[in-house]
């Protein structure tokens, strides 16, 4: 019988082996690696349905709401059941028929709308505000195939601090690639604090797992909901902003282009950050987001430009305070050092002559600082080019210790650096050693290549108030329950100026407002000693910018600020009264100089 008898065991062995392999494999699939296989198959047959978390709110320093969430409604259509009188439906949603057709086309186009199924509700109108929705709700539900999905949108009870708070927008392909967290329906912070603290604010999504059939209809919960998670709401943020002060500042800046930054000197907490012109943040929410954004972005006044951290401008005479401090610190001057007001050197206005150092601050004498800074550079000697270069290098170290020339590190993206002119820069502009003090003196009075952002100007006020140090200015003081301690050494910065040198400069700054001939005499505030310094930022394109940097009260300062108003002329005329009113608002909580307030509000510079 051929080889059957002798060879049959080979075959028994072969099939027996098959049998064992199969049993092992089944055991493996069902018991050992079940999670793995179930996971792999889930994406095919189990639908993960997202439950969006509630985004964190943002409060001001006193617990007043700056940003909260509001219910909005997505109007959804289930195409299979959807049958309506197009005209009536369009009238209800206030769209025209061509728009209606376009939207349906987009919904049905699978290359755009990947998960399309005629049995699953598709978004037709997104984020309708509840007041709009309420009116049509009844009639909308009469249509077959129309359903509604609740979502939340950002809402701003007071239309303030738009640039600082920022806005949220729908995620794009880049976000989806960069961060696994996002899914196509997500919204994310795209500017301001919303962007910077996105990870804190967004929370975590909840997921529901549904079993679905071939048509994508949900049958039941997968594994009885064992894998389901509930969303974790985002953290609430407590901001350092004072909503009342912010609102007041924005009101003062009506009709003006510029910025105000106010900081609490003892902590670096930003009390107000005003960018003017501003806009109502509620405009960048919901259905009208796109159109409004376009309109704001195209406005010639650059409404969306966050000037307080991005506008680089010559600081003007406010740097005279810093020049004074440097000269005192390196010992080339003292309280009584005086120079004649030689207008041949650099333009000036008429004032008492000669002046001591605090008086030079009071009157903002330009020739005084021409001479003083020359003395800083040449260390009081008749120097040559080598001495000038070395002197400038030393000066630059001092200036940079004031946080100038680099972003301060505020908790917003896009903060600009400003510019501290140095030897290298002048070499580049004029050629190596082909310049001298006469060429570059304008930096002594804060003009020319010198530039600061408004927040750096305010921070200069902080340094003066603190007599030599500052904390990194910031906008958020608490995330969820966790308080942020910016007093950490990473946020503490000490300048190279000895604290004993400040009293002399403070005198001059006090006199700016309080003594006759001071450049901001009108801005004196009864009962509060304000130390300030005016500045006039020269601008090749038009009228000078008005600058004022101040802190108050002189002893135990509570607020330091800088006001920058474009094309508003000298610092004393516009910026100083604004700063003074801001101080009054913050320290007294109530402004009594209503006439001054009205005069300022009515000033228009564009």
């Amino acid at each position, binding site marked *: 019988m051929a080889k059957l008898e002798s060879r*049959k065991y080979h075959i028994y062995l072969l099939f027996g082996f098959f049998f064992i392999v199969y049993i092992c494999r*089944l055991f493996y699939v*069902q018991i050992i690696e079940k999670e793995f296989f179930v996971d792999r198959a889930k994406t095919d047959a189990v639908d993960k349905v997202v439950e969006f978390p509630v985004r964190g709110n943002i409060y001001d320093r006193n617990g007043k709401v700056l940003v909260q969430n509001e219910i909005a409604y997505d109007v959804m259509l289930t195409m299979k059941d959807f049958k309506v009188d197009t005209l009536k439906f369009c009238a209800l949603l206030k769209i025209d028929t061509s728009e209606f057709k376009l939207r349906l086309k987009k919904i049905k186009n699978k290359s755009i709308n990947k998960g399309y199924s005629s049995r699953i509700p598709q978004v037709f109108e997104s984020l309708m505000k509840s007041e709009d929705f309420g009116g049509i709700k009844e009639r909308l539900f009469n249509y077959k195939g129309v359903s509604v999905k609740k979502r939340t949108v950002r809402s701003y009870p007071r239309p303030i601090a738009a640039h600082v708070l920022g806005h949220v927008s729908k995620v794009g392909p880049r976000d989806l690639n960069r961060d696994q967290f996002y899914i196509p329906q997500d919204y994310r912070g795209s500017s301001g604090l919303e962007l910077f603290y996105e990870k804190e604010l967004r929370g975590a999504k909840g997921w529901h797992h549904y079993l679905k059939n071939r048509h994508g209809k949900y*049958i039941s919960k997968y594994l009885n909901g064992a894998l389901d998670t509930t969303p974790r709401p985002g953290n609430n943020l407590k901001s350092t902003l004072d909503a009342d002060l912010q609102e007041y500042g924005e009101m003062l800046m009506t009709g003006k282009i510029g910025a105000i930054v106010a900081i609490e000197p003892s902590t670096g907490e930003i009390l107000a950050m005003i960018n003017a012109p501003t806009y109502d943040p509620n405009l960048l929410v919901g259905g009208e987001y796109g159109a409004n954004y376009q309109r704001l972005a195209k406005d010639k006044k650059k409404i969306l430009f966050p000037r307080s951290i991005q506008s680089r401008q010559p600081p003007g005479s406010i740097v005279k305070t810093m020049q004074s401090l440097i000269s005192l610190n390196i010992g080339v001057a003292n309280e009584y050092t005086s120079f004649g007001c030689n207008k041949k050197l650099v333009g000036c206005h008429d004032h008492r002559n000669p002046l001591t150092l605090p008086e030079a601050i009071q009157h903002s004498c330009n020739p005084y600082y021409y001479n003083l800074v020359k003395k800083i550079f040449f260390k009081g000697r008749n120097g040559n080019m080598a001495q000038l270069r070395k002197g400038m290098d030393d000066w630059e170290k001092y200036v940079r210790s004031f946080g100038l020339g680099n972003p301060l590190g505020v908790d917003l993206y896009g903060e600009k650096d400003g510019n501290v002119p140095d030897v290298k820069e002048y070499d580049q502009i004029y050629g190596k050693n082909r310049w001298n003090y006469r060429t570059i003196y304008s930096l002594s009075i804060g003009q020319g290549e010198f530039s600061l952002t408004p927040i750096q100007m305010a921070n200069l006020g902080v340094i003066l108030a603190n007599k030599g140090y500052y904390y990194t200015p910031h906008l958020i003081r608490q995330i969820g329950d966790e308080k942020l301690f910016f007093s950490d050494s990473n946020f503490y910065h000490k300048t190279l100026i000895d604290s004993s040198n400040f009293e002399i400069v403070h005198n001059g700054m006090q006199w700016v407002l309080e003594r006759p001939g001071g450049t901001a005499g009108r801005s004196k505030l009864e009962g509060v000693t304000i130390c300030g310094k005016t500045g006039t930022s020269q601008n090749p394109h038009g009228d000078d910018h008005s600058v004022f940097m101040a802190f108050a009260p002189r002893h135990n300062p509570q607020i330091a600020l800088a006001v920058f108003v474009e094309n508003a002329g000298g610092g004393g005329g516009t910026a100083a009264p604004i700063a003074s009113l801001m101080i009054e608002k913050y320290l007294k909580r109530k402004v009594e100089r209503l006439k001054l307030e009205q005069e300022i509000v009515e000033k228009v510079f564009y």
Partner: protein
Amino acid sequence: MQGIYNKIYGDKVIWGVIISLALMSIPIVYVGTDQLAQLRGGNFFYFVIKHAIILLGAFVIAYHVSKIKHGYLSRLSLILMLITVPLLLYTMLAGHSVDSAERWIKIPIIGLSFQSSDFAKLAVTIYLARVLSRKQGKLDDFKEVLKHLFFPVIIICGLILKSDFSTAALIMGGCFIMMFFGGVKIKHFAIISGLIVLLFTLLILLFPEGLQRLLTWVNRLLAFGDAAHEGNYQKNLAQASIYDGGAIGLWFDILPGNYGQPPQAASDFIYATILRNYGLIGGVFTIVMYLILFFRSIKIAKKCTKLFSTLLVIGLSSGLVLQAFSNMAVAVGLFPVTGQPLPMVSMGGTSLWFTAISIGIILSVSRETSSSKNEEIA
């Protein structure tokens, strides 16, 4: 009852096996096709009724084939082989394509489609049984072995290879098992294996379009285990089905119909559907059924007085079992997707009837062996 029992020809155990498999398959086909049925307008009974009718046909075929004296098949095989080659050539050139591989041909007039490879498999098995039994004395001569045994097998498999690699491989496997039992020398197997590899390479060089097919296969092999690969969609679903079934199965709970069934849950992936609904118990039961079929066939083969019958039974039964194992291997994730139906279980028209013919032949042999035994006793 006794009357019907007596009228059934052949081995009762094998009858029991195929009846069990068929009965088991009906509810499975019903749940396995609900997605297909929905796509076709919601007649959920369409496929299961069609399957039941085909099964009935299969039993009729098996019954009638079992009455034929299988001795005639020996001579018939020459004619079958003569038909097979042009048939395969015709399929290759004119057959209509399912999944870009030409496997099917349509019989004019009747309008039934069948895979010519099913026909070829039957023909080559019978032919091999004939030649092996006749050339017993010349098996030491490599030239003879090559000419009469390996050569026809390689030609047939080669013709199928282009469109259906897995079937070609299965036929080759079945034939090798037959030759192994038929007494072909191990040394010759080794030489031939080397030659096949050589020929395979040559074929690829000669038919660049065949390369495309091969690449598909290589890709499948490479993508095997890569969960993200689109081709593994079915496989992943199948594995999840198996997991869902657990040890005792879901027994047609509402869950299975709607959740994650692979699209071919009633044919290529039917074993996964069995495991889901009947659990590990049902899965083992199915394997045991095929093992019983095989060992029972070996038993029948051993009883045969003619070598032709022995080899015929071994060839047919090992062909069926190999096919069953390859189907199951796909479903449990041991193999990449091949498209082999599970014999007597999978929904799938004519291939079921070819299975019925094979079983009919085995039954016919068993009938003759048992009757000869009866005669001896009498």
